[in-house]
């Protein structure tokens, strides 16, 4: 009796149609969520890409300005300019007889002048070649799918 009631309940045509409609709606909702997710991710990638493009342009602009400033500094520290400034301050080049040498016990003069490696502090190693920067979500899904299916294909 209970079985026949349950069968009648589940086989009710109205219930069956509701199930179909519910499945379709569920599919639509999931599909819409996926689309919205893709849209959000894609728009974020695009925004980041734009930022990257403008950052690169800015780097170039700053590089040109930087070179100009470096050039100005170099011009100001030219040997001729420095000598002129030294002369204005009352200095002049020494003659051999004018130098006084004071022995300092324990002080050893380096034979070769060591140039500090300044540029080692400037380099920043950042990997900008992240796939997410240049891969759409579909490309990423396809890539993952291929990775997953590849062993199966070999079988």
């Amino acid at each position: 009796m209970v079985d026949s009631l349950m069968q009648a309940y589940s086989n009710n045509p109205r219930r069956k149609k509701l199930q179909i409609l519910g499945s379709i709606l569920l599919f639509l909702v999931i599909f819409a969520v996926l689309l919205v997710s893709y849209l959000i991710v894609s728009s974020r990638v695009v925004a980041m890409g734009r930022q990257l493009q403008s950052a690169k342009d800015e780097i170039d602009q700053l590089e040109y300005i930087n070179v100009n400033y470096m050039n100005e500094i170099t011009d100001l520290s030219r040997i001729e300019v420095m000598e002129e400034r030294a002369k204005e301050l009352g200095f002049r080049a020494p003659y051999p007889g004018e130098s006084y040498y004071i022995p300092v016990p324990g002080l050893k003069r380096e034979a070769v002048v060591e140039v500090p490696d300044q540029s080692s502090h400037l380099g920043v190693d950042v990997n900008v070649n992240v796939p997410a920067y240049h891969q759409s979500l579909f490309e990423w899904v396809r890539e993952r799918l291929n990775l997953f299916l590849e062993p199966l294909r070999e079988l």
Partner: protein
Amino acid sequence: MNDRITFNWRYLFVAVFFGLFAVAIIFQMTRIQLTVDSQELPVAHEMGQWEKAASRRGLILDRNGHVLAGNQTVYAVDVDFSNPSGRNDAAVANTIAELAIEIFEITNPDMIELLRQDPRPPQRTITVARFASKKQVTRFLSAVEALELPPGYPRARKGDQEQAEMSFREQFAVEDCGNSLRVHCSPHLIRSYPEEDLAANVIGFVMRDEKKGYLGVEEKYDASLFGNDRSLWALWDPHKADQAPDPDHGANIILTIDAVLQRDVEEILDKAMKKNGSLAGTILVMDPESGDILAMASAPRADINQYWKEDYQPIINNLGNVFNFGIKAYEPGSVVKVLTMAAALDAGVVEPDTEFIDKGKIEIGGITVKNWNDEAWGPQTMTTCMQHSLNVCLAWVAKQLESERFYSYFQAFGFGQLTGIELAGEVPGLVKNHQSAQFTRSELATNAFGQGIEITPVQMLKAISAIANDGEMVAPRIIHSIIDEGYRYTPPKTVVGHPISEETAHTLTDMLEQSLKEESSLALVPGVSLAGKTGTAEIYVPGKGYTDSATNASFVGWGPVEDPQFIVYVWFHKPATSIWGSEIAAPVFSKVVQRVVIHRGIPPDSVRISLQEAAE
């Protein structure tokens, strides 16, 4: 039953609604496909533009970090001479053309003709300057902005209203004149040499158009210095933003040169040449322990910022290897006697006190060798032979050595071979030996006192380093370090052999120190013990042979003799006031040493010895 019918109607309603929506979408898609030519639609993955990253050419610095070669931002300036307002504004265009000629100092007649052409050619844009400085561009833009343009003539690009409200200088700093309608500037980098002709012979130069290094370090290390500024197709697609070119800066190079010492040495060289009327000259200073070239002056030099000037063409074209006399081969004369004597002492053929009776001439290989004053000097020792620079004595010494040993020593000293100094254009010189074709025995005699061979000043420094450095010969080097992408590479010193023993090196140094003192040489410096040798070489004139009216005057010396810290080589080509190395080159050597001891912090012998004794 009724419920069932109502329910179906609702389904139908939803189906019709979605169906109509789908039809509308399909209709729109079809309409687009039919009305727009798909060929004309831009292809997303091809849309982009050529872009060039601001890549710097690597700097060239001296050993103390002073910039010898840097970069400068310049601008290619394009002026649009079209008539955007549709009015007759030829007067404005003419005024702008005249401004360009004046401010960019255009001297090319073709360009001037193009700018003044009336009526103007159909082309819209003319590049009025390719290497304009910031100052020139600012002046030009200010002048263009100040022009009284016809009414309605737009000053700024459409959509740039915000930028137009910024001050002109702000726009220039940020946009580089991008807001001016008529003028477009594109920045790019070129090489600049802030110290102008300082060490120009060492550095070389970079051609502005080709961006390629020529001569010196610029050519030798062109691949390392080159900042990769190639143009790449940069896509507008933000997904491909990482494919736009990144700046790829060249490596920085630190030279062994001390810029301040280099300047002092160049000044001494220039003044000496003015005084003695030489046509050319070179002075080299080397640390014998490491092989570091501390100064390499050569004259005449060119201001490499303006290498295209006509006055500099003989130097820049480098015909006859005149760009850098430090690596040019020549017949050095008596300075080679140092090495002949080193070979003889090392081989045990002679000793410092070996007696030689100088009869004023000696016959070897069918030729008669005479002394510089054609006189006989009588009984001599090897030390006095060196002191008086006797050709007859040294030819006899070479004869005692015999060809095979003599030339094997010369080979061991590196004659006829490149030293490996990191400069483009180095030549190996020319030294025959007893196995060479057309070798005559007379050449053994003449080679012994530096005639009939061609060697470079750098080769002499390398050979002399064996004597100044206890028999250990080091390769001269001009590169101290290379810094690339945060890493520094410092090549180690290169020992290239031990052509003579330590004992020979000390003996010869003592002999040459003594001979300098005995002759009261003009090369001496009070307080600093020095060893050295003069050289006067007659110059071979085709058709006339060797003539003493034109000579190469040289001097090579090192010090302090007990702990050599420098070797100085001086060479003057065709001096006018005197032909002798002892009168022309020796006093210049003394002046250079006076500067070297100050720059290198080398105390006088008395202080140095007392310090050594205190340390012991």
